[in-house]
């Protein structure tokens, strides 16, 4: 049974007559990793914004647990149900890694007593040391910032993880460990993980791979990529 579904979704930018995609139908289930591939500018990130509840479809609906996102409280959805890893990371740059993650937990209403301890443990999981955890984001490298963004998305233990090029800035070793985390989140913890990527390595962990080309979504097999 799908946890997140696109039903006849059409999207075009405000003031534009051109559809980015039209009549898209897709189902995303818990316990699986999905990857979405396609050329730059094909609309992958736009799709991810719809799934993350940051934007609404021009026509059709995006439903989460059978509830239309356009009609539900999308602040709550983003805070509690979805963990979003943005391509641009979107971290608070004048705050430390710890502050970013604790704030995210606070917004999500995480009841954990010792949020800092949980944050250190999360950051350690993605390869950020205690010393680096207390540095301001601007004092971290691109790869470290990306790992903080991943940790932040997982901090409130969301059912759905939506990631836009999450391993773009990572070295091979870190990429492998992050992919293991994504895989484990889906296969061991039963979460739904949706990743937009250009990386073949990322598509290798996918249970389903979808391609977006000229506004049309097609399910692909891994060897077809």
């Amino acid at each position, binding site marked *: 049974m799908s946890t997140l579904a696109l039903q006849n979704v059409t999207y075009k930018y405000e003031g534009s007559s051109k559809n980015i995609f039209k009549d898209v139908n897709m189902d995303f289930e818990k316990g699986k990793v999905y990857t979405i591939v396609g050329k730059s500018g094909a609309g992958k990130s736009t799709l991810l914004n719809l799934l993350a509840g*940051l934007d609404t479809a021009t026509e059709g609906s995006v439903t989460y647990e059978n509830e239309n996102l356009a009609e539900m409280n999308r602040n709550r959805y983003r805070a509690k149900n979805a963990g979003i890893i*943005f391509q641009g990371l979107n971290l608070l740059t004048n705050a430390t890694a710890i502050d970013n993650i604790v704030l*995210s937990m606070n917004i999500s209403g995480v009841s954990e007593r010792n949020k800092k301890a949980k944050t250190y443990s999360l950051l350690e999981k993605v390869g950020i040391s205690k010393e680096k955890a207390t540095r301001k984001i601007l004092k971290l490298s691109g790869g470290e910032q990306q790992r903080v963004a991943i940790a932040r998305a997982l901090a409130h233990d969301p059912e759905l993880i939506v990631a836009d090029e999450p391993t773009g800035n990572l070295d091979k070793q870190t990429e492998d460990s992050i992919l293991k985390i994504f895989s484990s989140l889906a296969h061991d913890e039963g979460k739904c993980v949706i990743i937009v990527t250009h990386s073949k390595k990322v598509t290798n962990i996918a249970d389903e791979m979808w391609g977006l080309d000229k506004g049309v979504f097609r399910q692909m097999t891994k060897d077809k990529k």
Partner: protein
Amino acid sequence: MYVFEHALLNLGKNKGRNILLGIMLFAVIASAVIALSIFNATDSIIENARIEFNTMIQIRPQRRQMGGNDNGASTVTLEDLHRFADSDYLSGVQIGVGGGFARGNETVFYLRSPELLYAFEAEMREKGLPDDWAVFRDESSYRRMIAPIENLQDISLTFLIVVMLFGAAIMILLSVIAIRERKYEIGVLRAMGMKKNKVVLCLWVETIVITFVCFVFGIIVGTVLSNPVAGALWTGEGQINIALNGITALQILGASLLLATITGAVSVSRITKYEPIKILMERN
């Protein structure tokens, strides 16, 4: 609760901007303290003088059309003056005597309250005050006494209005610039699921904390400077004492909070225009 924690953390993170905002607010509050203290002190002096003047009554022979002097007017004797002074309407009397004669026009009657004037005049007429003697208040003396105080009050009021308007304009400008700078931060918070009202509350708490700190320093510095400033502006005789009272402090606090809320309202109006996705797309 976390909104307050985040707001307090932000105060430390954005030191430059907050210090600039603080300096502006401090200058506005200190100036307002000086202006309002002077205004309230002069207001109280004027009010006391008005009450005092309105209770000081004199009598004099009315000037004749012909010759424009007192010649030919009826006389008021010392006995008459004592009879007039024996009145329940009075709190005191200062009888003018010169050269062994009663001088009615140098006698001052002090009424218990200003509104008793007509009753006291009627009583004096009954007791024999001639019709060609007038009962009057010495308005020209009052004007002379009060003019420099009113002048100082006008200056302080004008200064207060200018400071408040200028302060409000600068604060709104700084707030607009700050919100532009913080647009990205607001986009990130909203994308993480923070509600608009919490973002607004966070910004408001930051402004209120800065306002309160500036209020404390502004009150101290304003109070210290009030007397020297009033002294420099005072053109009357003697010296004028300015003291900050609780009501003035509350007025300043109210005005400061109003100013902070106005600037907060500007932030709110701008924040509500932003959708997180638009901010983040613009940035990325």
